[in-house]
């Protein structure tokens, strides 16, 4: 075995997941109504889930499955039709709850006339951060997301990926305990995606709780401890990633190298013992790894010295 | 044939988008309600009631039409470019010039529909207003309450009908209400012909002052011209500067004769500005209807030519501007 497993990297060595739930959702129902108050769409149909402190929880599902609706109900942007939602034990509409939440929406709804620096400063002020702390954090965050040179350009001139980075930075300015990311890698190039994933893992190791939604299953698989899969407003699968993905009825064995003769001997022995003819092929690396390796070589850097984005000090583990 | 189909599709879509804005229906309803209320509340005005109803109707037509034409034209192209819809359309085999002109055609269609409603309402408002009548059945001042009440109720009836259709069929409320309003006004207009002004059943005759129609047509031409100006400016500017420039052109155009016309003979600058700015006074000739006056159709044709030429020139500039604009 080469150590490849379905367990997310986060689970190895991450001892900070505790059982105390940060988010508690019980029987959440959200029905959108038309002008006449008639039900139009039942976006969320009685889901229940808990997100524990220190874990990365993924919400998956096809378009229209209710992921964003669930997220917005958690943040108080939508009112549940039925059921209850608690964040840090309080109602999501409570102002005190919001001190410890960072949110990145699916689209970066930023003020296009403000520069990146002004945007972060504005949101920092809304958290009541003093000027010195704000300035320090802003510079660190801009460096982390790679926008130091574009910090004084209006956000309206940014590409989607750059706007996403600013959005990510504003979600972290208050050193939140809970970070809610709605499609965090949307619009980012593969390097950016890798950096965001590394960031999430680092934040999680520091004791933060992350709730994310994504269509990109590879991203979720890499980072999440637990996932829930939604379909038409219902949770149809929920649990630890490794447990859900394991095909316990099959076994895979990987060798580093085998000659043709050794291969045939081995196959013959397996056929004798089990009566099965196993499938043989060469494992392939995923496209993301290949892409990153190629880019790294072009840049003249070694892959294993790439330490990912530089995390600001205030976001590191306390 | 393909181009024609593209043109009509885009124009129809533009018109539909325009009438689906809440403000469009609000402005139209407010205009019609004010036009209908005037003859019902202005009584005992020494025989001037008809004139006041007519002038009020035409003024409401002009003022509210300016808002509708300006707002829909300013926001239509700007929003589509801003949210990426324009780039999606232009990535298809649709020429920029055709797209731009189709936008104008759609907006002009909305303006024409609005003007039709307002002109019908003004015709009926004048009929409703208090008049002295001496017939076998009535002697004295009479007000056509029946037609007036129907006219006043028309916007509310249209909204009610659209609400019912929206409830049962899910059809969009705003565009449905707009269409129903036009239909109901035509029906009320036709129905009023069965009755005289005192409300008695009489041989069919519409009993309206048809000479108001040329005034309504002139106002419609003014609104179409303003739409062309606003659309062309919006190819280069965002909503706020577009509206600002349009308001300036409107105000300067209204005062064009006073500011530039009287100096045109002495100053070439004044004569150039006088020629360049649209002279809205050509389109507002409501005073010509006083004391039984008539606006000749030949005048309307001449002003129509002016409007066509001016709009054409402005649209050409707009099309050229749009051709070179980045729409990402």
């Amino acid at each position, binding site marked *: 075995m080469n150590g490849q497993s379905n367990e997310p990297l986060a689970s190895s060595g991450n001892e900070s997941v505790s059982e105390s739930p940060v988010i508690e959702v019980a029987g959440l129902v959200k029905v*959108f109504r038309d002008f006449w108050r008639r039900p139009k769409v039942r976006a969320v149909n009685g889901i229940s889930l808990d997100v524990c402190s220190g874990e990365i929880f993924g919400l998956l599902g096809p378009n229209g499955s209710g992921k964003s609706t669930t997220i*917005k109900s958690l*943040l*108080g*942007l*939508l*009112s549940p039709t039925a059921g209850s939602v608690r964040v840090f034990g309080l109602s999501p509409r409570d*102002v*005190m709850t*919001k*001190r410890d*939440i960072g*949110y990145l*929406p699916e*689209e970066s*709804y*930023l*003020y296009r*006339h*403000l520069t990146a620096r*002004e945007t972060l400063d*504005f*949101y920092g*002020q*809304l*958290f*009541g951060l003093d000027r010195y702390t704000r300035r320090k954090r802003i510079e660190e965050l801009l460096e982390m997301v790679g926008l130091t040179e574009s910090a004084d350009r*209006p956000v309206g001139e940014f590409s989607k990926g750059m706007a996403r980075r600013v959005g990510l930075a*504003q979600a972290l300015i*208050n050193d939140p305990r809970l970070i809610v990311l709605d499609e965090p890698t949307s619009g980012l190039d593969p390097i950016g995606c890798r950096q965001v994933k590394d960031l999430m893992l680092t934040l999680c190791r520091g004791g933060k709780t992350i709730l994310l939604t994504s269509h990109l299953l590879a991203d979720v698989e890499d980072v999440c401890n637990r996932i829930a899969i939604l379909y038409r407003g219902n949770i149809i699968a929920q649990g630890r990633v490794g447990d859900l993905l394991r095909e316990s009825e099959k076994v895979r064995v990987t060798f580093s190298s085998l000659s043709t003769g050794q291969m045939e001997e081995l196959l013959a022995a397996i056929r004798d013992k089990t009566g099965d003819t196993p499938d043989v092929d060469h494992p392939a690396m995923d496209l993301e790894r290949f892409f990153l390796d190629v880019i790294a070589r072009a840049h003249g850097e070694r892959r294993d010295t790439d330490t990912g984005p530089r995390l600001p000090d205030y976001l590191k583990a306390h | 044939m393909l181009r024609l189909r593209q043109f009509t599709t885009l124009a129809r879509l533009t018109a539909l988008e325009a009438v689906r*804005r*809440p*403000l469009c229906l*609000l*402005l139209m309803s*407010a205009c019609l309600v004010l036009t209908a209320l005037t003859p*019902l*509340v202005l*009584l005992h005005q020494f025989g001037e009631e008809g004139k006041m109803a007519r002038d009020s109707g035409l003024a409401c037509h002009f003022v509210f039409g300016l808002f509708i034409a300006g*707002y829909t034209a300013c926001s239509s192209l700007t929003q589509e470019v801003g949210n990426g819809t324009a780039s999606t359309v232009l990535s298809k085999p649709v020429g920029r010039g055709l797209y731009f002109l189709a936008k104008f055609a759609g907006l002009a269609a909305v303006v024409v529909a609005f003007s039709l409603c307002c002109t019908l309402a003004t015709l009926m408002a004048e009929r409703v207003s208090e008049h002295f009548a001496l017939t076998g059945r009535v002697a*004295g*001042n*009479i*007000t056509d*309450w*029946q037609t*007036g*009440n129907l006219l*006043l109720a028309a916007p509310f009836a249209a909204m009610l009908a659209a609400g019912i259709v929206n409830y049962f069929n899910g059809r969009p409320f705003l565009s449905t209400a707009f269409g129903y309003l036009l239909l109901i006004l035509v029906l009320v207009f036709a129905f009023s012909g069965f009755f005289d002004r005192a409300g008695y059943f009489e041989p069919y005759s519409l009993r309206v002052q048809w000479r108001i129609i040329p005034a309504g047509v002139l106002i419609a031409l003014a609104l179409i011209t303003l739409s062309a100006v606003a659309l062309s400016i919006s190819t280069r500017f*965002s909503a*706020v*500067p577009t*509206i*600002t420039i349009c*308001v*300036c052109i409107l105000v300067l155009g209204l005062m064009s004769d006073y*500011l530039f016309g009287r100096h045109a003979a002495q100053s070439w600058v004044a004569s150039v500005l006088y020629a360049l700015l649209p002279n809205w006074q050509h389109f507002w000739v409501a005073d010509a209807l006083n004391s039984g006056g008539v606006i000749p159709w030949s005048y309307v044709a001449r002003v129509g030519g002016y409007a066509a030429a001016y709009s054409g020139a402005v649209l050409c500039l707009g099309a050229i501007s749009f051709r070179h604009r980045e729409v990402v």
Partner: protein
Amino acid sequence: MKLSAIAFLVVRTAVRSRLLLCLVGFLIPVLVGLPLAVEGDGTAAGEIRVLLEYTLGLSLVILGVGALVFSCGAVAREIEERHIQLVVVKPVRTVEIWLGKWLGMLIVNAILLCIVGIAVYGGIRWALRSGHYDEAEHSSLKENLLTGRRQILPLPDDPTSEAVERLDQLTDGQSGLATTRREELFLTLKRHILAERATVAPGGSKTWVFPGSQSMGAERQVRLRFTLAPTVDRSLLAGAWHLGTASKTDAATVSMADALNGGNYIEVPQALCGSGEPLLVTYRNAEAGQTGTVVFDIGTGVELLVSESGFEANLLRSFLVLFFHLAALSALGLTAGCLFSSPVAGFLSAALVFVALMGHYVTLQSVVDTPTLHEEQIDGIERSRVSVFLEGVGERIVKKMEIVVEPVAGLNPLPPLADGRLVAWTFTGKALALLGLLYPAVFGAVGTWALWKRELALPGE
């Protein structure tokens, strides 16, 4: 800090979206072009009045519309473009959002008002530049226009009792007269009596009584101003004004010719001011053959004007009142934006202001001129029930709106400013209390509640 962050965001948006620039672009033709284009009546006073009434008035219409439209968009557009989602998930209360936006609007309004104020004051100083007017005109401007004078009106001359008497005489025996007709007749008689009392025929006289006041102190200039009806031929007038008190009748006498030459002003001797006794002002018309009939303006036939303030202070107070007007409009627009989409909010709030002002005007006209017509028959012709119903509904709506509009309708500083009359601190204080605090507080409560209740992440929001 949160309030200031949101407020400065509003200011930055106004500047960077070029809205401020566009409004200044609208103001420049008015501030510069209007005084150049409109010459007034050709006098120095006329030129200054153009600046103070027309230029300032039109500027304020532009600023009012701008404040209303921009404030509607301040919240509504944020909801439509979903910027507000990133704000609401921060620890910010909805009341803080509303207040922050309102404060931002106040700053924008203040900047624009400053520009208008500097331009108007600069225009006045430019008009007063040396060599433009002669000494007499300068002096007249400083005494009569570019100042702040407290107005004292004579004790009211209520015609009601006389009108009742005459009505009874005229309608004696006609008990069947419709109520509407009696009301109409009564109001007509009142107007008639007031007009009679404002008329001084040859050989006649009229006396006005001004309340005694210690505040008309020895240090202040006190002048009597009289206003004649526009139709009066001044060249035919001859008579004399007599000023005095109960104990000192005829303390001063001024001929009508001298008074007319003095621009309809008469100096009140210092000895008569500050005594505390009511001031008696009598005009005695000359005999028939020597003079024509003098008709005074019914509204302000005579008035005392006491110099209390300099022009700059008066102008400052006026601008403060205008600032409070804009504050109230901004609050209304913000609340409308919390409830509706941006263009609908703009339309509805503009319509509300328009209907309120028109309703107030109609109410004033009704009180002065026209009795309420509730009857189903007028002149023997039956009115439509719908028409009667509509009139009743309209009246009820107007009356309800008057409760809100009437307290602030009189808070317009432009007429006194353009007439050299005092805009007092009490006036400014009333404007602050109503327009600066009470009405915005009510609007703010509604807006905050609406924003709190609203689901800001609905699809299509």
